[in-house]
């Protein structure tokens, strides 16, 4: 792994801007309390680009260059990484951190570089009229909260009246995002919502679980990340909370989160934005990347939940770049062209099938006004040895999240002095 990165980095330096290439920065975190979650994602992200280079010679004939920068999930390091890489022709930033996303939204918009925060970041960035350079397809936190409640409604015969639901969340922008939607849903469906914050990094959760043990809420919804996830699952097991009523979001349902508890964690459920299981593309990555000694990690993460998601993120970026190449008729695209490509991106089942990842995500089309995709998610459950997919893609309640998005994005536009562009004109 070290050898590969050395060659990649050395190659990156030798490849001066004179050669055409597509630069995708990878703001990863392989150190610190969130490394367990950050490492497989980054491996998947880089391996897919390596596969494109090895198999197809890049995107549209132009090789891809991935520049990795370690943020340790720290916003100041994230800013340093952004400033260090942005002048290098960076096409799109995917910081995989809601805190860093908040830093980068104004900066990237001012610099004209698109930002893709798949399923995290600022939810109201769905509104493309206000957030011209920020995309969060295929889903966001508010969709996620709504899908969770839809699943629970379905299980309880359409009514949650009188039920108590606790939100256990990482005490940061990431964890606080769903609160607004859940409050709206709680008023609509008549369940009581309790909020329990866990301070970062989340290794200390004794108090919160004591409270859960005392109150015995009907459901616990979980917004965790990194080391916090395995601690929460262990605590839930310790107080014998029924695990099928403990539901994680799509950042709290990875293999390493449940692996340490193993069989004891059987029954824990989590949503997912992408489908799991074997796909033809994994065999190709194994052949062209891992067996060739070019993997970003040690190759053991292949096919795991977050590896698949990182690969999915890279695929969406590569497809957007391809779309941009088609729109502008130029192979060596600029960040501005990349933005146009992302805005015109359309994912269909046929396309995903031909890429070797059939049905990996929902079908969606991005437009000028809607940067958010459909927000559909699947429910998965840990069987004790593997994640089992329980449902097909479930739709959120757009009638709840839609007005909230408009309200929050209008507040941002007023605060930042942005005049929303009109998407109906052009």
């Amino acid at each position, binding site marked *: 792994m*070290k050898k590969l*990165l050395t060659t990649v980095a050395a190659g990156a330096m030798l490849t001066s801007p004179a050669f055409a290439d597509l630069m995708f920065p990878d703001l*990863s975190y392989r150190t610190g309390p969130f490394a367990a979650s950050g490492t497989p994602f980054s491996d998947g992200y880089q391996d897919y680009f390596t596969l494109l280079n090895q198999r197809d010679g890049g995107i549209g004939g132009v090789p891809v260059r991935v520049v990795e920068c370690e943020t*340790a999930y720290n*916003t100041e390091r994230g800013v340093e990484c952004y400033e*260090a890489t942005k*002048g290098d022709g960076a096409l799109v930033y995917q910081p995989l951190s809601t*805190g860093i996303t908040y830093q980068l939204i104004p900066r990237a918009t001012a610099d004209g570089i698109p930002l893709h925060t798949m399923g995290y970041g600022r939810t109201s960035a769905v509104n493309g009229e206000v957030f011209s350079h920020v995309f969060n397809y295929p889903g966001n936190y508010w969709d996620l909260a709504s899908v969770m409640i839809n699943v629970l409604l379905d299980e309880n015969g359409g009514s949650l009246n009188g039920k108590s639901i606790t939100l256990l969340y990482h005490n*940061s922008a990431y964890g606080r995002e769903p609160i607004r939607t859940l409050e709206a849903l709680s008023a609509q469906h008549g369940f009581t919502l309790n909020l329990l914050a866990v301070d970062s990094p989340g290794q200390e959760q004794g108090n919160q679980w004591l409270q859960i043990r005392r109150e015995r809420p009907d459901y616990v919804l979980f917004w965790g990340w990194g080391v916090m996830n395995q601690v929460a699952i262990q605590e839930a097991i310790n107080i014998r909370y029924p695990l099928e009523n403990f539901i994680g979001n799509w950042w709290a349902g990875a293999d390493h989160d449940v692996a340490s508890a193993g069989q004891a964690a059987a029954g824990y459920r989590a949503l997912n934005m992408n489908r799991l299981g074997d796909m033809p593309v994994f065999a190709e990555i194994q052949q062209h990347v891992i067996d060739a000694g070019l993997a970003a990690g040690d190759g053991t993460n292949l096919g795991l939940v977050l590896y698949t998601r990182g690969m999915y993120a890279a695929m969406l970026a590569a497809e957007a770049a391809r779309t941009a190449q088609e729109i502008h008729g130029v192979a060596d695209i600029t960040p501005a062209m990349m933005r146009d490509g992302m805005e015109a991106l359309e994912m269909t089942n046929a396309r995903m099938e031909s890429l070797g990842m059939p049905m990996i995500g929902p079908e969606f089309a991005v437009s000028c006004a809607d940067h958010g995709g459909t927000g559909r998610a699947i429910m998965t459950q840990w069987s004790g040895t593997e994640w089992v997919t329980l449902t097909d893609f479930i739709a959120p309640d757009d009638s709840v999240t839609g007005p909230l998005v408009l309200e929050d994005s209008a507040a941002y536009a007023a605060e930042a002095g942005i005049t929303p562009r009109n998407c109906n004109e052009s």
Partner: protein
Amino acid sequence: MFYREAGDFKTSYADDSQTFPIAFDRYRYYFVLAVGLGIIPFVITDYWASAILIPFLIYAIAAIGLNILTGYCGQVSLGTGGFMAVGAYTSYKLMTAFPWMDMVTITLLSGAMTAMVGVMFGLPSLRIKGFYLAVATLAAQFFLVWLFNKVPWFYNYSASGQITAPERLLFGHAVTGPNAEAWVKYLFCFAFVFVLAWVARNLTRGAIGRQWMAIRDMDIAAEIIGVNPLRAKLSAFAVSSFYVGIAGALLFTVYLGAVEVGEAYGIQKSFLVLFMIIIGGLGSLFGSFAGAAFMVLLPVALKVLLVDTMGWDTALATHFQFVIVGGLIMFFLIVEPHGLARLWSLAKEKLRLWPFPH
């Protein structure tokens, strides 16, 4: 040869008591100012501003602030992060409530507000000292972070609890927000650092600074010779918090632009600033600058060296950074427990004798 007092005659008391009595030191100081004002603003890039110079300047203010309290007055504080948060949130509330207010006023008012909060949390210092005071200020750290998380008024009821600095102009140039240019932000911070360091230098060698040092060296003896411990300690807390608050405000408005209290102003920030003054040198203004430079520049320099130049794996390089920074801290503290400032003054002693040491 060049660095010596010999032949440098003083003809007035003012000359005799100036900050840099040695001509060479004085010229060096003017040179640094000239480079800082005359050259850097014209060549500065976004990367140099955002990754190196602005954090260095801001942390230098924070380090001077903590040095006044800990280095000069001997009161240990672990609440620096919390006090920085007070400065940041005051700026945010002022910026959003009074959009016409200019950034200099806002930053100074943020410092004043932090000074008031600092005095409040400084009250226990009249009864407790040493480790016990450290624990009391640690409580301030946790309380303030909890407060800014808990009360939505502080973050204007935003969904995520993040505060974002809106764009504000100074003399027609954006100082905050994404459109602020690197040189504007740099000069804005530079001006604050210059004025605050100048004030701190003159405070610490004046009557009040001597009172602080008397309290630090032995508070009972100081009280016997007529130093009022209430005034001395609380003024140290006020001045120190003023500086720290300004640093926190600038960190939010100019440097980061968007901040979350637990992440940006957590306990690790308190430790970071404390390390800066310990490594730089307690009770020394130069030490505050040296410590800030050491802690800000070293990680970036190591990253550039290990990842960009030598092509190491980023995770490995980050782990090695911890090892190297930790090793260097231990090395410096073993070789010179009084910090970089002491090394500097030793070097100057040697220079005076050079080239004929006896």
